[in-house]
């Protein structure tokens, strides 16, 4: 599997607007985190949703974010984190 990122790379989630179906929640776009693990390769949900024949198979990563970096005025502990799955084409290296 060819992946653009490796574990512990610092990444930013692209802040672009998505068209149609997409699995990158809006709240995480534009936020900076690290690659927690590489989950494997999966068909691109944005293409499956539109019934495209032979959707591209793309790497999926679990990314870790500090809650304080995601939410202004986060009230919990500085240690608190949030992890979610982001497909490669939504990530950029910093």
């Amino acid at each position: 599997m060819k992946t653009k990122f490796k574990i512990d790379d610092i990444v930013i989630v692209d802040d672009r607007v998505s068209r149609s179906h997409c699995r990158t929640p809006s709240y995480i776009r534009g936020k900076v985190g690290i690659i927690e693990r590489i989950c494997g390769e999966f068909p691109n949900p944005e293409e499956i949703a539109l019934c495209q024949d032979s959707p591209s198979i793309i790497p999926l990563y679990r990314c870790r974010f500090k809650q304080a970096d995601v939410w202004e005025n986060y009230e919990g502990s500085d240690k608190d984190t949030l992890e979610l799955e982001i497909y490669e084409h939504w990530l950029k290296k910093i």
Partner: protein
Amino acid sequence: MSKIYKKMGPHDVGGENSIPIDLNDPEMTHWEKYANALRIVVSSKRIITLDELRYHTEKLGDAYFKIGYFERNCLSLHNICLNKGIYDQELFNVVKLKKVAEFDVPKIDLPDPKKIEHLHDGVPHSHEQSDFQEDETGEGPPDYYFDTLAIADIMIKLGLITKEDITQKIDQFDNVFPNRGKTVIAKAWSDEDFRQHLIEDAKTAISNIGIKLETFADIICMPQSPETHHIVVCTLCSCYPRTLLGMPPSWYKSRSYRSRVVHEPRKVLAEFGTIVPENREIKVHDSNADMRYLILPPRPSNTDGWDEEQLSEIVERDYLVGVRLPD
């Protein structure tokens, strides 16, 4: 709270403010079980993928807010079938009318309530109030059930699915899936090697003990510890390890839980009666794509010498989602 912008649609709720979580989890009705089974059968056979179903649900617009979870599923399934030419509206209407007719039992001639006299505390009494009405009207199946039955009927006749596929799926959700997670956790509490394997590669570890999960998704197991408290949510829909835990409870699918857990996990946990110490990291897992999460709770201290069967009986679903910890 940060600003929320560029929402994808009514489903993209992570980070919103919302009301306290309603912890009631009513038993599913038969039509809901049927609708759920049909959706799972159709997607597991790849007749219609989960992402297509999600996309069409997200596109429902105002209807998304006006109808419930299973109604949305039903409507989006119907729209996809029309789009894909699996059937046309005319055929659907004919089949639906047939389904309605199957339920159209003759009305019983109820006596006029005003003419009935009977004894209340020994006093003759006639009913003039509306307290007979609830028996008289009864509650028929909701219209969406007929839609669901019609969709299933057409798909069965086309040979895409079978009747047995649906009944088997309902049975698995009722009797098989909810017990698997408990079995796995009880094993992890009893067998250190299995526990390690479960944390390293959950799907293989689970498969090695003879549980074959009917899911395309991968499973990640996170152990609760004195350092870290894990909690799972799906902010975009209701991703949940169904083949290990059964159907998600109502609150897991609720807008309030899905919107709030990501930005105020401690407040949400407190509503479940779970107070996490300030110095313990809370790690929220947004199950937003192809992974499903199983949280491994600590083994309760008063269980020395218990066998796996005894242990599995005290494993509760809420522990495995991370909203509660064993006492």
